């Protein structure tokens, strides 16, 4: 039986603040092709009900670090879609 990990990556996408409210979700689990990037995970979330309210190029993070949309994803990665920051 072939390992699915060679074909698919499973990632969690975390939503915060206004993004979480718009989708009514804080976490989305996504299975993506093994060559997927942050942009692919984003596309999936934006296809969900309310997801069109997330901008096409939000601030993103992978595994607690800011990351551009073309960052390649690995199995188990934690992707975060970050609304405009308002700390300080």
């Amino acid at each position, binding site marked *: 039986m072939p390992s699915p990990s060679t074909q698919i990556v499973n990632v969690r996408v975390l939503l*915060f*603040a*206004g993004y979480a409210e718009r989708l009514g979700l804080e976490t989305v689990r996504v299975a993506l092709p093994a060559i997927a990037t942050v942009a692919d995970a984003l596309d999936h979330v934006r296809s969900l009900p309310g997801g069109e309210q997330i901008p096409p190029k939000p601030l993103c993070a992978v595994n607690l670090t800011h990351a551009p949309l073309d960052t390649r994803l690995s199995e188990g990665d934690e992707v975060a879609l970050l*609304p405009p*920051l308002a*700390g300080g």
Partner: protein
Amino acid sequence: MTFLSSAPLDFAALVAQVEAPDRGAVASFLGLVRDHHAGRGVTRLEYSAYAPMAEAECAKIVSEAEVRWPVRVALEHRIGTLEIGDAAVAIATAAAHRDEAFAACRYVIEEVKRRVPIWKKEFYADGTIEWVGAGRALVGDSPAGSSGS
């Protein structure tokens, strides 16, 4: 080190953290909750965070400042419900000389605003509620201005 606090910030304790007999200059910054934002009356705020990433970013920022200047840095950011006048962020930097202390203090507050995943929900006097920044534009790449400072 914990940079996020759900309890009121203790500014004096933060300053005391960086004081030392060979550091004669302490610069500091406090960001307080203002009673208005973009012309609207604010009654309270709620700060929330992507906590593990916020802690990691704060640690990086402090470390960067301490590598770049001969300073010691202390930083704390409040989360949860804040009333008008409460401190949302407190920074203290101590150095032998004031140039370094001021430069590091300024660096830390700018980077906190730019990089740390914290969000702010404002409760207005007219009863409305809004995520600051997120509600303005959907091309939301750039950090929003803070009502605090």
